[in-house]
Every structure is written in C-alpha cells, then in structure tokens.
C-alpha cells in the first residue's frame, strides 16, 4: 500500500514542501530503503524509525518498504524526516486507520525520533509553522512546539512520542493542540550583565554608546587596556529596546534554523548580543558549511556584534564584514546550496591604540616603534573604518574617579538610558514609517536629504568641519546621520547647532 505524508525541508531561511511517499510491498525481501537525496542523518532514519516503532509497542511490518522523499532533486538533511517516515510506515501497514491526507486539511509532520519512540527537539520548527500557514495541522516535537505556536491560524499539535500520535490519529486519545501563544509585550525588567552606572568615568564613551543604541550606529572604541571598553560593550544589551514583533520573528527564524533556541522557547524578545572570539574563521563569521548555516553576523541580526580586540581578528574575517555592513544581508554560495541570511547588525568594536596599548596614556610610556604602530593600525582597513559612524576614545581613568565612593555627576543607570533610547527609536519609527527602515544608521543619502534638513548655522559648522578635516562625502552624510540621532535623543524635530557640534566629536580618529 502506498501512503503520502507531508513534511518540510528548510534550506537556509526558506521552506519547501516535501512529500514523504511510503510503499509497503507484499513481495520481495523485507527491508527498508530510503531514496530522495538524503544525507547521512536521513539514511540513518532507517534504524531510528524501526527501533522507535518497535519500542512504542507497534509493529514494524516484515515487508519490503520503500520510502521516497520528493522532490528528488532537493537535498534533504537532518533527523526531521523520522516522524513522517514512521507515520507513513504505520499508515501503509494499516496501523493508522484514519485518512492522513484529506484534501481539505494540510497536515505536516516534522521531528526527530529517539529510539524509545519519543520525539526530540528539532531545529527549524518555527519555519515549519510559517510554511504551514492558513489552517494547516502541524505535528511537531513537544519541546519545540512553542516555536510554531506563535504563528496565527495554524493548529500546532505538540507530540511527546509516537504512540501518543498514533492514538491521536486513530481517535483513541486526543492530543490537545497548543493554543496560539499570545505574543505578549515583555515586561521591561531586562536583567543585565553590567549596568552602565558601574563603569567609572568614561562619560563620552557612555554617551557614544547611547547614540549607537538609539540610532543603530556602528561604534569603535579606542583605548588602553583595562579602561572599561569591554565592560561598556557588555552593558550595551541593557540599554537596547526589546524587539518588536516582526523583528522578533525575523531573529527567531535565524535562531530556529541554527537550533539555538532552548526547549520550550517561542519567540526571542531580547536583542541578540554576539561577541565572537578573534580566533573565528570567515565561515564562522558570515556563515558557511556545505549546507550553509548562519554565521555570527546573522546571529547578531537586529542586535549587536561586538568585536573585542578588533585588530586581532584575521584580515579576511574583517573584510568579510563589508558586504553585510553595507547591505544588511549576506549571501553564501556553496557547491550544493545558495542561501542568503539577513545580517543587519550594529557593530561594536574595541581596539587598543598600539600593540603595547599605552600610546597616549598619561602616565605610562608606549614602547612601540612607529613602524609597529603603523602595522597594527593597518590591520583594520580604511573601508571598514569608513563604515563606522562613531569613533570614541576611552582613555585611562584618573585614580580619584576610581576611588571616589559617590558616582560621578549625572551618572545615569542603564534603565534611564534605555528609556531615552526607546523614545528616540519611537521617533525614528514614526519618521520612517513607509520607508522600511528601522534606524537612522540605515538611511541612504536620499533619506538623509529628505529627513535631515539643516538650518543655515548648522550647515555652516558642518561645511567648516568638512573643509578643515578634508572629510569625504561618505563622512559628510555620516555626520548628518549621527546628528539626526542626537537630535532624536534630545526629542528635537530639527537638527540644531549643538547636535551637529556633538556629532563632530565622534568623527574618525585615524
């Protein structure tokens, strides 16, 4: 008997329908063969499915069984076909009596089996839910079911084990379907690793961090070791607003295909903060593998990518950031696949001014030669520096600031700053309503011309700066964008002189 079961193949962030055809033949030597361009994990489904069926107290028919995963030319991978294959075998051998494929309801089975018949958390369940849309029934492992439950208008059945599902399909004991999870607004009590209030001094850097958070600008921090660059960066997640619902869906998709959601997790609401070590390979940074998985740039999508000791990163890795920084998307091409992942992140980088780290330090002498410093600086190429909107010095802290018990003047806690950032982001949201932008940093030149009107005096200062420092056209637009964000933080409609003057402080240092 021939049975067809529907499942889904995820390639990158795209999903394709897969028909799992199962034939149980009366003649021929017993055995199970799977065709349809599966990888090793799919081939091994044979053993998992057989053992799982037997251990669930069901019969594995001693017949010649052929499984076909159609379309034949789409590569299939992973353990997610275990469930549709098992259901197909049980239906084809008469152990599931109800019709699986009524024309009216689209049913999708997706999940990896364990030898005891239980279902294991499987990656990509959110994509399955999004694929099912419009009234479909989705049978997925209970641990991953919450991912799919955020999608409207589908029925998600959380399956604990094979036996339960068979009983459900045979109308013996129903599995309760998950009600649509309300995407509730996350309460604003973000627990943070560091509060900005804990960092001694560094007012300018804190301000720059605020601007970066508010406008999504890339930020580079220069400074000697131990002045708080890393601490400042780690405080960044605490001042970022949580993800809006569409944003959260975008981010969760990426984490779902990477299998990085923990059991029971549904939608990520925190902005991602990724800080890869400088030993990372280009494939780890932008994504890769024979079936390409998202890299750090995509995992940091709509969040922060923090590169500590940026000059220590291999040149190839840094240069690979150029395309995603420009386009907010990264295309990965391999022999068998061509996928693109979103990668719109805020780059946060920390770097020492020279190899020994003490160039420009008020009390310690720098031991580096000119040549060493030049060589060190050359590790970060011009085009990368050119894409960073904010450059800020994080100098050595004076001893009295460290020892004073009282926190420095107008010291703000992360919580207060976050409120300001949220307000500034709201202004941007209103402004860019129809343009598909989220933040000021994403503005193109035409948007700058449209949204950033400068009055006479402001324009004069800008011109003066351009002439004096011989700034490039890109730097010119960058300054205006930063000034726009500063004005937003000030809740001001127009960019004033003081906003532009502040923006000028964060121009490129070298």
């Amino acid at each position, binding site marked *: 008997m021939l049975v067809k079961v529907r499942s889904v193949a995820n390639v990158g962030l795209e999903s394709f329908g897969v028909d799992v055809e199962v034939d149980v033949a*009366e*003649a*021929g*030597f*017993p*055995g199970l063969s799977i065709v349809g361009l599966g990888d090793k994990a799919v081939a091994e489904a044979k053993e998992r499915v057989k053992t799982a069926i037997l251990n669930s107290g069901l019969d594995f028919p*001693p*017949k010649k069984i052929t499984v076909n995963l159609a379309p034949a030319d789409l590569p299939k991978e992973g353990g997610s076909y275990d469930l549709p294959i098992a259901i197909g075998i049980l239906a084809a051998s008469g152990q599931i009596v109800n019709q699986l494929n009524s024309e009216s309801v689209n049913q999708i089975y997706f999940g990896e089996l364990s030898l005891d018949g239980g279902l294991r958390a499987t990656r990509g369940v959110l994509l399955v839910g999004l694929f099912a849309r419009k009234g479909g029934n989705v049978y997925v492992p209970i641990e991953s079911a919450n991912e799919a439950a955020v999608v409207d208008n589908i029925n998600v059945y959380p399956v604990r084990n094979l036996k339960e599902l068979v009983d459900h399909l045979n109308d013996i004991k129903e599995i309760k379907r998950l009600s649509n999870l309300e995407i509730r607004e996350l309460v604003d009590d973000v627990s943070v690793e560091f509060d900005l209030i804990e960092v001694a001094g560094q007012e300018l850097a804190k301000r720059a961090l605020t601007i970066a958070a508010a406008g999504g600008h890339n930020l580079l921090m220069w400074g000697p070791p131990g002045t708080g660059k890393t601490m400042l960066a780690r405080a960044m997640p605490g001042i970022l607003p949580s993800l809006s619902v569409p944003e959260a869906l975008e981010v969760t998709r990426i984490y779902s295909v990477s299998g990085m959601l923990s059991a029971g997790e549904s939608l990520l609401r925190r902005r991602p903060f990724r800080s890869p070590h400088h030993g990372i390979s280009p494939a780890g940074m932008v994504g890769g593998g024979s079936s390409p998985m998202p890299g750090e740039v995509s995992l940091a999508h709509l969040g922060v990518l923090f590169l500590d000791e940026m000059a220590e990163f291999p040149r190839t890795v840094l240069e690979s950031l150029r395309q995603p920084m420009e386009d907010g998307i990264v295309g990965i091409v391999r022999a068998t696949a061509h996928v693109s992942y979103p990668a719109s992140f805020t780059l946060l980088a920390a770097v020492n001014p020279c190899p020994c780290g003490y160039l420009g330090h008020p009390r310690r002498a720098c031991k580096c030669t000119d040549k060493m410093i030049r060589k060190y600086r050359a590790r970060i190429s011009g085009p990368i520096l050119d894409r960073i909107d904010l450059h800020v010095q994080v100098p050595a802290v004076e001893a009295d600031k460290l020892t004073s018990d009282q926190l420095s003047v107008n010291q703000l806690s992360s919580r207060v700053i976050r409120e300001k950032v949220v307000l500034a982001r709201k202004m941007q949201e209103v402004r860019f309503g129809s343009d598909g932008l989220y933040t000021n940093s994403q503005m193109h030149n035409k948007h700058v011309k449209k949204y950033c009107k400068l009055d006479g005096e402001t324009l004069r200062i800008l011109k003066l700066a351009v002439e004096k420092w011989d700034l490039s056209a890109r730097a010119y637009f960058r300054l205006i964008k930063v000034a726009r964000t500063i004005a937003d933080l000030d809740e001001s409609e127009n960019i004033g002189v003081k906003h532009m003057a502040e923006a000028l402080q964060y121009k490129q240092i070298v």
Partner: protein
Amino acid sequence: MKTENRNVGRAGESVAEEFLVRKGYETVLRNFSTRFGEIDLIMNDNGVLVFVEVKAKKGLIFGSPEEMFTRGKYDKVKRMATVYLKGRDVSCRIDMVAVVLDELNQPVSVRHYENVVM
C-alpha cells in the same frame, strides 16, 4: 577433520528442519546448490518462501553459532535466493537457525531467528 565438520553441518540441518516442520513450516527443498554455494533449507511458512541458513556447532568453545553468521554470509544467501527465484516476485525472507550439538551430535539447543536483516 573435514568429514567431521561436514557431519556436524548435516546433523545440524536435519535438527533445524525437524524443528521448523514442527513449527508448521513445509519443506520445499534441501541443499539448493548454486555456483555461489548452498542454501541449507528452503521452507514455506504460510505462503512466504523462507530461505534458511543453518549454523551448527559442537560445543561453545569456539563461540556461538550466531557469531558465525556474518554480513558476508547473509549477502551470499540473498544472492543464492535470487538465483532460486529467477525473477519471480513472491513474498520471501531469510531466516537463520542456530544449532548447538553435543559430542554425540545430539541437539543441546536450537534457536530460530526470523527475518534476519543485515
């Protein structure tokens, strides 16, 4: 020594056949011989053609008879079965019977494995 081994084999086969017949199988053919080797028994179990490989051993000093049935042997039996079938499409399977004999070639234990898949 060789004769001795052959005797053990033959004794094992008749023990296995008797065992299966008592289980309700019908003998179709004994020692079907091809150029790849022999199928010890071909039986009929309610319409399913069963190719039986018998492994017999005297004592357990050199391991159990089950250990003697390898992937290579399985493939060989399957190949011989294909020769026997000559392309006919009927339901069939491969079974294995493990026989342990004592010094006098009397059966100590008989174990029957249905539908061996390797």
